[in-house]
Protein backbone atom coordinates (compact mmCIF):
# COMPACT_ATOMS: atom_id res chain seq x y z
CA UNK A 1 0.00 0.00 0.00
CA UNK A 2 2.83 2.32 0.96
CA UNK A 3 4.57 1.51 -2.33
CA UNK A 4 1.44 2.48 -4.26
CA UNK A 5 1.16 5.72 -2.29
CA UNK A 6 4.81 6.51 -2.96
CA UNK A 7 4.34 5.75 -6.65
CA UNK A 8 1.23 7.95 -6.89
CA UNK A 9 2.93 10.79 -4.99
CA UNK A 10 5.74 10.83 -7.58
CA UNK A 11 8.06 12.73 -5.25
CA UNK A 12 5.45 15.39 -4.45
CA UNK A 13 4.91 16.11 -8.14
CA UNK A 14 2.00 13.70 -8.51
CA UNK A 15 -0.50 16.57 -8.49
CA UNK A 16 1.03 17.79 -11.76
CA UNK A 17 2.04 14.49 -13.40
CA UNK A 18 -1.24 12.57 -13.13
CA UNK A 19 -3.44 15.39 -14.47
CA UNK A 20 -1.02 15.68 -17.43
CA UNK A 21 -1.43 11.98 -18.25
CA UNK A 22 -5.14 12.06 -17.47
CA UNK A 23 -5.77 15.02 -19.77
CA UNK A 24 -3.76 13.40 -22.55
CA UNK A 25 -5.73 10.16 -22.24
CA UNK A 26 -9.05 12.05 -22.10
CA UNK A 27 -8.34 14.07 -25.24
CA UNK A 28 -7.01 11.11 -27.24
CA UNK A 29 -9.77 8.73 -26.18
CA UNK A 30 -12.37 11.45 -26.68
CA UNK A 31 -11.24 12.10 -30.25
CA UNK A 32 -11.24 8.37 -31.01
CA UNK A 33 -14.74 7.80 -29.66
CA UNK A 34 -16.11 10.89 -31.41
CA UNK A 35 -14.52 9.95 -34.76
CA UNK A 36 -15.77 6.34 -34.58
CA UNK A 37 -19.28 7.48 -33.64
CA UNK A 38 -19.33 9.91 -36.56
CA UNK A 39 -18.16 7.18 -38.96
CA UNK A 40 -20.77 4.76 -37.66
CA UNK A 41 -23.58 7.34 -38.02
CA UNK A 42 -22.58 8.18 -41.59
CA UNK A 43 -22.33 4.50 -42.54
CA UNK A 44 -25.83 3.97 -41.16
CA UNK A 45 -27.15 6.95 -43.13
CA UNK A 46 -25.51 5.65 -46.32
CA UNK A 47 -26.96 2.15 -45.89
CA UNK A 48 -30.42 3.62 -45.31
CA UNK A 49 -30.19 5.80 -48.43
CA UNK A 50 -28.83 2.99 -50.60
CA UNK A 51 -31.55 0.62 -49.38
CA UNK A 52 -34.22 3.20 -50.25
CA UNK A 53 -32.86 3.82 -53.75
CA UNK A 54 -33.65 1.80 -56.87
CA UNK A 55 -30.86 -0.57 -58.04
CA UNK A 56 -29.54 1.76 -60.82
CA UNK A 57 -28.99 4.56 -58.33
CA UNK A 58 -26.52 2.56 -56.21
CA UNK A 59 -23.19 3.41 -57.86
CA UNK A 60 -19.87 3.82 -56.02
CA UNK A 61 -20.11 4.19 -52.24
CA UNK A 62 -18.31 2.24 -49.56
CA UNK A 63 -16.18 -0.74 -50.60
CA UNK A 64 -16.63 -2.61 -47.30
CA UNK A 65 -19.08 -2.15 -44.40
Amino acid at each position, binding site marked *: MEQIETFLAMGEHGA*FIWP*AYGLTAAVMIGFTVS*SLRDLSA*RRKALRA*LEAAMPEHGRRGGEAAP
Partner: protein
Amino acid sequence: MMFHRFANPTRFLRLADRVLPWSVLLTAGPLAVGLYLALFVAPPDYQQGESVRIMYVHVPAAWMALFVYTNIAIASAVALIWRHPLADLAAKASSPIGAGFTFLALATGSLWGKPMWGAWWVWDARLTSVLVLFFLYLGHMALMNAFDDPTRGRRAAAILALVGFVNVPIIKFSVEWWNTLHQPASVLRLDGPTIHPDMLWPLLLMAIGFTFYYVTLLLIRLKSELIGARVRVLSMSDLSAR
Protein backbone atom coordinates in the same frame (compact mmCIF):
# COMPACT_ATOMS: atom_id res chain seq x y z
CA MET B 1 0.47 9.62 -61.54
CA MET B 2 0.22 7.13 -58.64
CA PHE B 3 -0.97 9.91 -56.37
CA HIS B 4 -4.13 10.30 -58.40
CA ARG B 5 -4.94 6.58 -58.24
CA PHE B 6 -6.22 7.19 -54.72
CA ALA B 7 -8.34 10.13 -55.79
CA ASN B 8 -10.98 7.45 -56.44
CA PRO B 9 -12.91 7.24 -53.15
CA THR B 10 -13.67 3.51 -53.43
CA ARG B 11 -10.01 2.70 -54.08
CA PHE B 12 -8.92 4.89 -51.19
CA LEU B 13 -11.48 3.33 -48.83
CA ARG B 14 -10.17 -0.14 -49.71
CA LEU B 15 -6.61 1.00 -49.00
CA ALA B 16 -7.70 2.59 -45.71
CA ASP B 17 -9.38 -0.66 -44.62
CA ARG B 18 -6.16 -2.60 -45.32
CA VAL B 19 -3.90 -0.12 -43.53
CA LEU B 20 -6.09 0.54 -40.46
CA PRO B 21 -5.45 -2.70 -38.50
CA TRP B 22 -1.68 -2.17 -38.80
CA SER B 23 -1.99 1.45 -37.82
CA VAL B 24 -3.99 0.49 -34.74
CA LEU B 25 -1.32 -2.08 -33.76
CA LEU B 26 1.46 0.45 -34.29
CA THR B 27 -0.47 2.88 -32.07
CA ALA B 28 -1.31 0.51 -29.21
CA GLY B 29 2.02 -1.36 -29.07
CA PRO B 30 4.46 1.56 -28.80
CA LEU B 31 2.07 3.49 -26.52
CA ALA B 32 1.72 0.55 -24.13
CA VAL B 33 5.47 -0.10 -23.94
CA GLY B 34 6.30 3.61 -23.91
CA LEU B 35 3.87 4.31 -21.05
CA TYR B 36 5.23 1.43 -19.01
CA LEU B 37 8.83 2.62 -19.49
CA ALA B 38 7.87 6.28 -18.90
CA LEU B 39 6.03 5.65 -15.63
CA PHE B 40 7.83 2.64 -14.10
CA VAL B 41 11.31 2.27 -15.60
CA ALA B 42 12.72 5.63 -16.72
CA PRO B 43 14.72 7.33 -13.97
CA PRO B 44 13.81 10.71 -12.45
CA ASP B 45 15.83 13.69 -13.65
CA TYR B 46 18.70 14.83 -11.42
CA GLN B 47 17.34 18.41 -11.44
CA GLN B 48 13.62 18.06 -12.16
CA GLY B 49 12.94 14.89 -10.21
CA GLU B 50 9.81 12.93 -11.08
CA SER B 51 8.18 15.88 -12.88
CA VAL B 52 10.33 14.96 -15.91
CA ARG B 53 7.79 12.18 -16.55
CA ILE B 54 5.49 14.86 -17.97
CA MET B 55 8.02 15.06 -20.82
CA TYR B 56 6.79 11.71 -22.16
CA VAL B 57 3.38 13.19 -23.04
CA HIS B 58 4.30 16.87 -23.45
CA VAL B 59 7.09 16.46 -26.02
CA PRO B 60 5.28 13.95 -28.30
CA ALA B 61 2.18 16.20 -28.21
CA ALA B 62 4.30 19.20 -29.19
CA TRP B 63 6.03 17.27 -31.99
CA MET B 64 2.65 16.12 -33.28
CA ALA B 65 1.29 19.69 -33.19
CA LEU B 66 4.04 20.70 -35.62
CA PHE B 67 3.89 17.50 -37.68
CA VAL B 68 0.14 17.68 -38.23
CA TYR B 69 0.32 21.37 -39.20
CA THR B 70 3.09 20.54 -41.69
CA ASN B 71 0.85 17.83 -43.17
CA ILE B 72 -2.01 20.30 -43.42
CA ALA B 73 0.24 22.79 -45.21
CA ILE B 74 1.39 20.10 -47.68
CA ALA B 75 -2.20 18.92 -48.24
CA SER B 76 -3.28 22.54 -48.77
CA ALA B 77 -0.55 23.09 -51.38
CA VAL B 78 -1.55 19.87 -53.17
CA ALA B 79 -5.20 20.92 -53.06
CA LEU B 80 -4.51 24.39 -54.45
CA ILE B 81 -1.98 23.36 -57.11
CA TRP B 82 -3.19 19.93 -58.30
CA ARG B 83 -6.76 20.02 -56.97
CA HIS B 84 -6.38 16.46 -55.63
CA PRO B 85 -9.83 15.67 -54.18
CA LEU B 86 -8.53 13.97 -51.04
CA ALA B 87 -6.08 16.74 -50.15
CA ASP B 88 -8.76 19.16 -48.90
CA LEU B 89 -10.42 16.35 -46.95
CA ALA B 90 -7.09 15.36 -45.39
CA ALA B 91 -6.53 18.95 -44.25
CA LYS B 92 -10.09 19.18 -42.88
CA ALA B 93 -9.77 15.84 -41.06
CA SER B 94 -6.34 16.70 -39.62
CA SER B 95 -7.11 20.14 -38.23
CA PRO B 96 -9.05 19.16 -35.07
CA ILE B 97 -6.47 16.48 -34.27
CA GLY B 98 -3.64 18.99 -34.58
CA ALA B 99 -5.55 21.47 -32.44
CA GLY B 100 -5.98 18.74 -29.82
CA PHE B 101 -2.26 17.98 -29.76
CA THR B 102 -1.42 21.69 -29.53
CA PHE B 103 -3.84 22.10 -26.62
CA LEU B 104 -2.19 19.11 -24.89
CA ALA B 105 1.29 20.56 -25.49
CA LEU B 106 0.18 23.85 -23.89
CA ALA B 107 -1.73 22.24 -20.99
CA THR B 108 0.91 19.62 -20.10
CA GLY B 109 3.55 22.29 -20.54
CA SER B 110 1.75 24.43 -17.95
CA LEU B 111 1.54 21.46 -15.59
CA TRP B 112 5.27 20.96 -16.00
CA GLY B 113 6.10 24.67 -15.82
CA LYS B 114 4.33 25.29 -12.51
CA PRO B 115 6.56 23.00 -10.38
CA MET B 116 9.71 23.81 -12.39
CA TRP B 117 9.43 27.52 -13.18
CA GLY B 118 6.92 28.49 -10.51
CA ALA B 119 4.54 29.76 -13.20
CA TRP B 120 1.64 28.27 -15.18
CA TRP B 121 2.45 30.56 -18.12
CA VAL B 122 5.19 32.89 -19.34
CA TRP B 123 5.14 34.95 -22.52
CA ASP B 124 8.40 33.52 -23.80
CA ALA B 125 9.01 32.86 -27.52
CA ARG B 126 8.32 29.12 -27.50
CA LEU B 127 5.08 29.23 -25.51
CA THR B 128 3.76 32.27 -27.37
CA SER B 129 4.49 30.84 -30.82
CA VAL B 130 2.78 27.54 -29.88
CA LEU B 131 -0.24 29.52 -28.67
CA VAL B 132 -0.27 31.25 -32.09
CA LEU B 133 -0.21 27.77 -33.68
CA PHE B 134 -3.27 26.82 -31.62
CA PHE B 135 -5.09 29.93 -32.91
CA LEU B 136 -4.05 29.04 -36.48
CA TYR B 137 -5.65 25.62 -36.06
CA LEU B 138 -8.85 27.19 -34.72
CA GLY B 139 -8.84 29.68 -37.59
CA HIS B 140 -8.34 26.87 -40.11
CA MET B 141 -11.29 24.92 -38.68
CA ALA B 142 -13.48 28.05 -38.62
CA LEU B 143 -12.69 28.99 -42.22
CA MET B 144 -13.46 25.47 -43.46
CA ASN B 145 -17.02 25.91 -42.23
CA ALA B 146 -17.42 29.67 -42.72
CA PHE B 147 -18.83 29.72 -46.25
CA ASP B 148 -22.05 28.43 -47.78
CA ASP B 149 -19.96 27.14 -50.66
CA PRO B 150 -17.61 24.52 -49.13
CA THR B 151 -15.10 25.01 -51.97
CA ARG B 152 -14.57 28.64 -50.95
CA GLY B 153 -14.11 27.62 -47.33
CA ARG B 154 -11.53 24.98 -48.23
CA ARG B 155 -9.64 27.41 -50.45
CA ALA B 156 -9.55 30.09 -47.73
CA ALA B 157 -8.46 27.53 -45.13
CA ALA B 158 -5.74 26.24 -47.46
CA ILE B 159 -4.36 29.74 -47.94
CA LEU B 160 -4.37 30.35 -44.18
CA ALA B 161 -2.56 27.04 -43.64
CA LEU B 162 0.17 27.95 -46.11
CA VAL B 163 0.65 31.49 -44.80
CA GLY B 164 0.65 30.23 -41.21
CA PHE B 165 3.34 27.65 -41.97
CA VAL B 166 5.95 30.38 -41.32
CA ASN B 167 5.14 29.80 -37.62
CA VAL B 168 6.50 26.24 -37.68
CA PRO B 169 10.22 27.11 -38.07
CA ILE B 170 9.64 30.03 -35.68
CA ILE B 171 8.46 27.54 -33.05
CA LYS B 172 11.35 25.16 -33.75
CA PHE B 173 14.08 27.82 -33.60
CA SER B 174 12.47 30.10 -30.99
CA VAL B 175 14.62 28.61 -28.22
CA GLU B 176 17.77 29.49 -30.22
CA TRP B 177 16.77 32.88 -31.63
CA TRP B 178 15.43 34.38 -28.40
CA ASN B 179 16.34 34.27 -24.72
CA THR B 180 13.65 31.84 -23.57
CA LEU B 181 12.70 30.18 -20.30
CA HIS B 182 11.78 27.04 -22.29
CA GLN B 183 14.75 24.70 -22.49
CA PRO B 184 16.63 24.30 -25.82
CA ALA B 185 16.31 21.21 -28.03
CA SER B 186 17.75 18.04 -26.57
CA VAL B 187 16.66 15.46 -29.17
CA LEU B 188 16.43 16.96 -32.68
CA ARG B 189 19.85 18.62 -32.79
CA LEU B 190 22.56 18.70 -35.49
CA ASP B 191 25.11 17.15 -33.11
CA GLY B 192 22.73 14.43 -31.89
CA PRO B 193 20.50 14.06 -28.84
CA THR B 194 21.83 15.03 -25.42
CA ILE B 195 19.18 13.05 -23.59
CA HIS B 196 20.15 9.77 -21.87
CA PRO B 197 19.00 6.55 -23.66
CA ASP B 198 16.98 5.51 -20.58
CA MET B 199 14.84 8.58 -21.23
CA LEU B 200 15.20 8.73 -25.00
CA TRP B 201 13.70 5.28 -25.70
CA PRO B 202 10.40 5.82 -23.87
CA LEU B 203 10.19 9.27 -25.47
CA LEU B 204 10.68 7.88 -28.98
CA LEU B 205 8.20 5.04 -28.38
CA MET B 206 5.57 7.52 -27.18
CA ALA B 207 6.29 9.69 -30.24
CA ILE B 208 5.83 6.68 -32.56
CA GLY B 209 2.58 5.77 -30.78
CA PHE B 210 1.30 9.35 -31.08
CA THR B 211 2.22 9.43 -34.77
CA PHE B 212 0.34 6.24 -35.61
CA TYR B 213 -2.55 7.43 -33.46
CA TYR B 214 -2.77 10.43 -35.81
CA VAL B 215 -2.56 8.14 -38.87
CA THR B 216 -5.33 5.92 -37.46
CA LEU B 217 -7.59 8.82 -36.63
CA LEU B 218 -6.91 10.49 -39.98
CA LEU B 219 -7.91 7.34 -41.88
CA ILE B 220 -11.10 6.99 -39.81
CA ARG B 221 -12.02 10.64 -40.33
CA LEU B 222 -11.23 10.49 -44.07
CA LYS B 223 -13.48 7.45 -44.42
CA SER B 224 -16.13 9.43 -42.59
CA GLU B 225 -15.73 12.44 -44.89
CA LEU B 226 -15.93 10.30 -48.04
CA ILE B 227 -19.02 8.47 -46.82
CA GLY B 228 -20.52 11.82 -45.80
CA ALA B 229 -19.93 13.15 -49.32
CA ARG B 230 -21.66 10.08 -50.78
CA VAL B 231 -24.61 10.59 -48.39
CA ARG B 232 -24.96 14.20 -49.57
CA VAL B 233 -24.89 13.18 -53.23
CA LEU B 234 -27.50 10.46 -52.72
CA SER B 235 -29.69 12.75 -50.59
CA MET B 236 -29.64 15.41 -53.33
CA SER B 237 -30.42 12.96 -56.13
CA ASP B 238 -33.20 11.49 -53.99
CA LEU B 239 -34.67 14.98 -53.51
CA SER B 240 -34.46 15.82 -57.20
CA ALA B 241 -36.07 12.50 -58.16
CA ARG B 242 -39.18 13.31 -56.12
